[in-house]
């Protein structure tokens, strides 16, 4: 789990861990597919047909691959957001809401504030707005946790629903298209659309770069070191001069920015408009993405791709094999449970990733004099 660090003597460990983690992840994926296949077969569908259709719709041919990559992008960014947070011991379940918040602010910038501006101005602003929107949304949960001791699991879930309603409100009201026919925003001007190559928009390579950057941050910088220290042991970190509250805020804002970016990229790179069901639950699938990647930012890339395959292939599976696309959710659920199972090992109770869960109360700050 220590990643690509430290070098030298550690290389053996890195290789060993990489191998064992990869094996475990592959095992989880394989088992989950197997179980899903058995369920599909038991329900009278043809699992062979289902898998063929799923692969055809996600991997075989340029169109299918494009569809998969377009799904991989937001899963990568939100998965990265979740992985960073879990590493720091912050239980952020709110990537979905942060994605919507980012999309909302980006759309606001593109369709209301910078209408007609050239791409060099509007694109950076839109991207920044996306990141800012997500970060601000996440900061609410972070501030509630740090200042009022509110458990972030609950607050981020609540904020997801509020964000979705805010978006709904916006596309029915102030951001609704000029035509006024549908609850959706105006189409983004061409200048506000991300450049794309063969339908792969710029956001996807940026997401991959951000995964690299996330890995660098976590394992090669002082800030990432402090985050990981807090995630493993907030009390020991405090004795080492690290302020856990500050790391927590920093991490959740960073994660919010990543998820918000995913929202901005969706609007600017894929849909071209904001509407209510922009995300098919990317922010929730992100938890599975992060856990399968064992919270390693680089491993989030293949993990997101795997779930991208499910997301893109699910539709094809439904159309061609008659197996409903939600079957992929079954696979996601099993993958999570198996990730826990594989992490625990035989008879063990070790949890995935950094196990130290910061003590928080669900309402009200803790009164006793503990250091944390």
């Amino acid at each position, binding site marked *: 789990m220590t990643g690509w660090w430290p070098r030298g003597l550690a290389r053996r460990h890195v290789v060993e861990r990489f191998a064992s983690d990869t094996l475990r992840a592959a095992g989880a994926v394989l088992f989950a597919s197997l179980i*899903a296949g058995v*369920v*599909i077969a038991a*329900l*009278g*569908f043809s699992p062979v047909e289902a898998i063929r259709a799923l692969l055809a719709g996600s991997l075989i041919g340029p169109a299918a691959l494009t569809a998969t990559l377009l799904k991989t992008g937001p899963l990568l960014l939100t998965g990265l957001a979740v992985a960073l947070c879990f590493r720091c011991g912050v*239980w952020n*379940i709110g990537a979905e809401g942060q994605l919507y918040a980012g999309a909302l602010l980006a759309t606001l910038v593109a369709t209301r504030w910078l209408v007609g501006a050239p791409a060099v101005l509007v694109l950076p602003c839109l991207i920044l707005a996306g990141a800012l929107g997500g970060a601000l949304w996440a900061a609410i949960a972070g501030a*509630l946790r740090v200042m*009022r001791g*509110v*458990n972030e*699991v*609950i*607050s981020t*879930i*609540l*904020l997801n*629903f*509020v964000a979705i*309603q*805010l978006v*709904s*409100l916006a596309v*029915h*009201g102030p951001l609704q298209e000029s035509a006024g026919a549908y609850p959706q925003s105006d189409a983004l001007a061409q200048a506000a659309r991300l450049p794309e190559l063969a339908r792969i928009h710029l956001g996807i390579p940026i997401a991959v770069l951000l995964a690299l950057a996330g890995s660098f941050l976590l394992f090669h910088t002082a800030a990432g070191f402090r985050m990981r220290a807090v995630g493993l042991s907030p009390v020991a970190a405090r004795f080492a001069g690290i302020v856990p509250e500050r790391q927590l805020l920093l991490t959740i804002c960073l994660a919010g920015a990543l998820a918000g970016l995913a929202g901005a990229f969706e609007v600017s790179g894929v849909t071209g408009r904001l509407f209510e069901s922009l995300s098919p639950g990317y922010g*929730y*699938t992100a*938890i*599975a993405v992060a*856990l399968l990647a064992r919270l390693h930012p680089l491993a989030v890339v293949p993990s997101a791709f795997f779930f991208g395959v499910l997301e893109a292939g699910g539709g094809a599976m439904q159309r061609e094999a*008659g*197996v*409903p*696309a*939600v*079957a*992929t*959710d*079954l*696979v*996601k*659920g*099993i993958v*999570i*449970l198996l990730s*826990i*199972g594989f992490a*625990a090992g035989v008879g063990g*109770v070790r*949890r*995935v990733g950094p196990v130290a*869960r910061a003590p928080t*109360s*669900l*309402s*009200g700050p803790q009164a006793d004099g503990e250091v944390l």
Partner: protein
Amino acid sequence: MEALLEAAVRLAVPLLLAALGELIIERSGIINIGTEGLMLCGAFGGFAIAVASGSVWLGAAGGGAAAACVGVLFAYFVVVRRADQIVVGTAINLLALGATGLAVRALYPGMAPVSPTFGTVAVPLLSELPVIGGALFRQTPYVYLCLLITPLLAFALARSRPGLRLRAVGECARAADAEGVGVSRTRFAAVLLGSLLAGLAGSALSLAQSNTFTEGMTAGRGFIALTIVIFGRWRPGGIVLAALFFGAASALQHRLQARGTDLPYQLTLMLPYVLTLLVLALASGRSSAPADLGKAYRRESR
């Protein structure tokens, strides 16, 4: 007004049942994010069995049983393996969405059939009461179930020894263990019972509020139940009020949407969540959440 009240109660019932189930689980010290999935299982199980047997009563029982089975899975990971409760709950949600979506298409290719439904049953005399008569006593059996279960649960928590033990485990597992109360056993039982209620709540959606099952038909109600427990400050009475409030909010929202008034219905949808956040943020002093909520219990080895 009376119609609005009637609708509020009708819409509140599945929320209330699920929230009471969540209450039982949380009072044992476990936070269950998977209520949404449990409800979905209950909705599907209830629907499928009602269709197959032609009996709504068997259907409701089946819905509860189906969710309880998934509850065993949840309890296994959370209580026995001591895995993270949030992560397992998320998995349960995804699992249930996938499994029920798959099953409904497999069992009923094409369109899902119409299931028998619970009709409204008027209680003689009481249903003639002004204002509340129709809202409380001319309803489906689910409402009467709530009228029965809520005081029973309140009584059990306050005045029965199993209830005391449940609270002891959730408030201070260490003390309960020292006093010889089986922490794992109690938590397992709480998850089972809570899942059963969540399943019944789900069956209310497919057998009373509609007459069929559609993929993901719970539409976030499991999370609302979670919110209701917090908003009701972990007390049955508070939860009833919170559930009624949420029910009224969605009844109002339906009405606003139908009338096309200026007030955006999203505000009424958003309001409960924002209020809950405010309650959490402003709650000062003593917390009403069970003190050991979310903490896996391991006996200290000496």
